[in-house]
């Protein structure tokens, strides 16, 4: 893609291949360690952009987008010679290659000596992706002073800079929820904490609401963090949390699993000794499957299930579907400002303790559900109305896929 200046400013494809060329291995670290550091460097950019990076391990003639190599002095046919130990430690070409000066003392990220290869690689890959030097304290694109901080990350300003070139990450998501944990303080007080999770495909992210980003190093495969659940493509999550009840359900297809929060895995059996997963129709009679989304409304003690253009309601106290449901989504959750409305086929329904609101998500947009506080301010708002759509990427930031080969 072309920018204002001469030449293209950014890659147009979303999956880019890279290779550490065999003629350009460093003499200071093992090849495996070099490749591992470079994989981490590419992954750090992947975690904040809609770009994925795949290491090309096939034939040497296979086309790659980025080649990386170590060299000394006049190296590898490069028009720009390195200067020996000190000063210039690497250089890169926009949309091109990266060379590291092997006369520098590059070390692995865990070392407290030498130049942190990971940090240098992240910087040079930033150039390859189209970023110039940025003279701002804390920026990874500062041209000099490579601190030996092994825990560096891309700060919000660096993220914004690369997203100007490649856009932001957004939905859809399979499920979004706040996971409640109750703990006891050292003084015996009951504390309620929660973590926010986003699920898509075969992996998930923990979202740090106070920092407006995902946990560093996410996403993680579902099978790693959620034992007993299907490996991918969940349909919905519901947490029935009320006086005397704490039940967490995951849904996929025509089945559901109940999750044991204390044991951190799905229950093997229900209270009658029957193995999970169980049919949805057994536990929630009158509710169809597969589902698009669901959430538990603590005020009414109903679970709202969404399928297609319809909404079903299930009374957990009465343990039966609520009439006059099902209703059309446009009726049960009317638009506050038509025509902005998802109409149906939601991706996820998110009951957020972080925001004190319920959100319906579809694609790259979300609609906030009118709550009690909204209606106190404006009684004309419809019950369960949907405010106009907003972009997911402007409320939840940098929830980005990485290439499957980059998953730990």
């Amino acid at each position, binding site marked *: 893609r072309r920018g204002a200046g001469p030449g293209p400013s950014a890659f147009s494809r979303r999956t880019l291949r890279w290779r550490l060329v065999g003629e350009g291995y460093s003499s200071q670290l093992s090849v495996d360690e070099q490749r591992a550091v470079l994989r981490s460097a590419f992954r750090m950019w992947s975690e904040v952009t809609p770009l994925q990076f795949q290491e090309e391990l096939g034939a040497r003639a296979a086309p790659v987008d980025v080649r990386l190599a170590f060299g000394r002095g006049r190296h590898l046919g490069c028009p720009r010679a390195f200067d020996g*130990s000190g000063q210039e430690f*690497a250089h890169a070409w926009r949309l091109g290659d990266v060379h590291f000066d092997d006369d520098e003392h590059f070390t692995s990220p865990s070392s407290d000596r030498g130049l942190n290869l990971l940090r240098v690689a992240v910087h040079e890959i930033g*150039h390859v992706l189209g970023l*110039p030097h940025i003279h701002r304290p804390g920026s990874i694109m500062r041209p000099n002073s490579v601190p030996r901080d092994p825990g560096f990350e891309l700060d919000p300003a660096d993220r914004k800079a690369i997203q100007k070139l490649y856009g932001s990450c957004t939905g859809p998501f399979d499920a979004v929820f706040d996971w409640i944990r109750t703990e006891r303080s050292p003084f015996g007080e009951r504390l309620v904490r929660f973590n926010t999770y986003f699920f898509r495909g075969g992996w998930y992210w923990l979202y740090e609401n106070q920092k407006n980003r995902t946990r560093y190093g996410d996403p993680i495969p579902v099978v790693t963090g959620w034992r007993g659940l299907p490996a991918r493509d969940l349909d919905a999550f519901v947490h029935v949390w009320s006086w005397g009840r704490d039940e967490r359900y995951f849904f996929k297809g025509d089945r559901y699993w109940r999750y044991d929060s204390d044991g951190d895995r799905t229950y093997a059996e229900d209270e009658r000794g029957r193995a999970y997963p169980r049919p949805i129709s057994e536990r929630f009679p009158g509710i169809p499957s597969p589902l698009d989304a669901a959430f538990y409304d603590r005020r009414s003690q109903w679970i709202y299930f969404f399928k297609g253009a319809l909404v079903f309601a299930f009374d957990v106290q009465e343990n039966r579907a609520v009439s006059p449901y099902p209703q059309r989504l446009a009726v049960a959750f009317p638009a506050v400002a038509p025509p902005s409305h998802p109409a149906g086929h939601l991706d996820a329904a998110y009951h957020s303790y972080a925001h004190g609101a319920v959100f319906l998500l579809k694609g790259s947009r979300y609609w906030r559900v009118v709550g009690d506080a909204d209606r106190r301010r404006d009684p004309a708002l419809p019950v369960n109305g949907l405010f106009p759509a907003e972009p997911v990427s402007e409320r939840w930031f940098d929830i980005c896929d990485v290439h499957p080969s980059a998953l730990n």
Partner: protein
Amino acid sequence: EKLFHRRDRSDLEVAALPRAPPVADLPSAQEFLSKYGWTRRSPWPAAPPPAAAGPAFAEAVRGFQRVNGLPATGRLDEATVAAMNGPRCGVPDGPAGGPAPAGARPRAFPRR
């Protein structure tokens, strides 16, 4: 025998490597500023530095000092020279710099 200060003699290994010529005087500073885009002539590939120091050179030094958090005196003081000699990326920066040049791929790698 060579003197070393680390048990594993790793400081000797570094000392044995060819060292980058330091920025130590006016000509080397001029070359540095030209190489990294602080003067108008494109440093990529490195262009010869300006023939003599003057207002343009002082302005280039001031620009370099500003982005490095140094007093923008326009003079080559000790702190400025130290900043020039620090480890850095080879991509130009400064007013005449900008994004890394595109597409300047090296020729095919020679066979070892």
